[in-house]
């Protein structure tokens, strides 16, 4: 077989190469550049090797914010995925209420992130906020600007309110694609509702749930705007997640080297987790 090569074809991919270079490759390489050097401004750089990486990986501060980040992501996934599936299961399958439910579900998703943060900030204020006031009114002392637990509770609640809808919509789409015949077949076999969920609905939703978990993992792992507006990372450092910490290091302290190293480690964690998770979930699909 003779293979003909058309060198001209390179011209057609050039625009994409340029675009990717400008919005991903060059910024990423700039970060790599900063991560191995020390700079005092004026474009003067000194080679540092892997020093910043070692510093970051050994810093207790990084460990603490990574742990907070993992805890936050773990908690919201554990709440939002089952809750989203449960809501999707109770939504009507047909009739005029379908569109009403879908519109209501989509609403939180349409609100800009900083607005969500500001809304919940006011909502949760202990003196004038509806939520804060109500909780205090029940005799429970609640002040998210002072108590770490209250700050976490409010942040998690805000994220659940903001993003469970996404899981609901994806799970609902997955449920709707199951033909009625499956339910009939299960009914004839005498399967209980729990068995129908376990053996028909869940396996049929596997793909959309994989996507939902991936999206929620990535978004929550990189969360910045909402907790920044709501708590500013406080009280103390109690809600300082990775990205908030990163911004503090990079722009607050202007430690560009450690910040760059931290960004790369952060990026690799997200990439690795997504890859491992996706490979595991899709393992049987490819057979």
């Amino acid at each position, binding site marked *: 077989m003779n293979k003909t090569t058309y060198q001209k074809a390179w011209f057609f991919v050039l625009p994409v190469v340029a675009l990717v270079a400008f919005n991903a490759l060059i910024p990423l390489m700039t970060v790599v550049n900063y991560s191995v050097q020390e700079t005092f401004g004026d474009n003067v750089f000194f080679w540092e090797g892997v020093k910043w990486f070692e510093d970051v990986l050994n810093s207790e501060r990084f460990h603490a914010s990574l742990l907070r980040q993992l805890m936050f992501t773990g908690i919201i996934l554990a709440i939002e995925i089952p809750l989203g599936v449960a809501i999707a299961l109770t939504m009507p399958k047909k009739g005029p209420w379908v569109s009403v439910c879908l519109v209501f579900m989509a609403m939180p998703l349409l609100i800009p992130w900083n607005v969500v943060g500001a809304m919940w900030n006011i909502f949760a204020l202990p003196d004038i906020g509806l939520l804060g006031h109500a909780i205090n009114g029940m005799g429970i002392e609640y002040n998210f600007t002072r108590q770490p637990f209250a700050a976490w509770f409010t942040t998690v609640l805000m994220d659940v309110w903001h993003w469970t809808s996404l899981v609901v919509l994806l799970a609902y789409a997955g449920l709707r694609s199951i*033909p009625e*015949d*499956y339910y*009939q*077949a299960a*009914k*004839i*076999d*005498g*399967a209980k509702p729990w*068995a129908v969920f376990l*053996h*028909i609905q869940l*396996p*049929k939703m596997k793909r959309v749930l994989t996507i939902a978990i991936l999206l929620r993992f990535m978004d929550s792992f990189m969360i910045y705007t909402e907790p920044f507006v709501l708590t500013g990372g406080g009280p103390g450092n109690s809600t300082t997640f990775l990205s908030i910490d990163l911004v503090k290091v990079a722009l607050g302290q202007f430690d560009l080297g450690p910040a760059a190293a931290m960004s790369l480690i952060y990026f690799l964690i997200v990439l690795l987790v997504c890859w491992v998770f996706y490979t595991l979930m899709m393992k*049987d699909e490819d*057979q």
Partner: protein
Amino acid sequence: MTLALKNVVKRVGADTHIYDTSVELVSNQFNILLGTTLAGKTTLMQLIAGLEKPTSGEVWFGGKNVTGVPVQKRNVSYVHQQFINYPHFSVFENIASPLRVARFSKADIEQRVGRVADLLKLTPMLGRNPSELSGGQQQRTALARALVKDADVVLLDEPLANLDYKLREELRDELPKLFQDRDCTVVYATTEPIEALLLGGYCATMNEGRITQFGETAAVYRRPFDLLTAQVFSDPPINIAEVTLNDGRFALNDQVGWATARANLTNGSYRMAVRPHFVTLEPSSEDSIKLEGQVLVAELSGSESVVHFEVDGLSWVSQSPGIHAIEVGKTTEFYLDKTQCMYFGENDQLMAA
């Protein structure tokens, strides 16, 4: 076990899906529901299964009224047109699922599944997932699930419709054997008259939510009580023409007519129906009546020639064995076997056949 429907009506909103239907199906036999899509076959099967509740009327299983009994307590099995299997269960687990729900012992399950798998040639596939099987094997798995249960009523809703031609023939031959020595009533829905004839047993022809006739398949085919049944039970569509009887002679038009010895018919006009394979390109006997018509469409189907032609503005279908070269637009001679004509009188009831 006898299965009877008594004055069953099914309405959904303003639409009536099944009109007042009473029928007693025959035990240990294939009971075929024959009709086009939307004739009500699936609705009727779902009413029998208990997946749907009749608006009024009763369903009886072996002398017991089961109208309000939920599907899982009726001991029925159901095979859908689309192969339905549990996606993440192996073939073995799929077949075993009704037994697991019914809490059979482990040894019992293995023995039963093994026997059914053997019967349906699924033994080498037992460890695989349904997604790794071909369409035919997936449908066999669904059939195995229906068989393993020893259900009183087995409902097969166009089980072969999604299979390719060869597999369909193969499974169709096997089906009656599978149910041969089982004590169950089989209800089988199909859109194809030929399938009904090949399966034999008993047949209910259905049209727009009504059973037009129920009886032995061959008898329904040979002596349809009315024109509608004849139409439902014919593929290609049956030929229908107005004829007038005058003193022992039927006249189709000014030129074509034939003498009849039927003394029971009074003079007047009738609707005559004749199946396409009794209108041929060559005379089949000396009783054949010559028709001259203009060819509209000619098609070959297997080893048969199907020709649509027109006589005095009325279109006819002819089906002849062998492959013939037919020119479209040309006036051609066709031969009608007059002994095979059916005559329908008032209300399209059969008067003579």
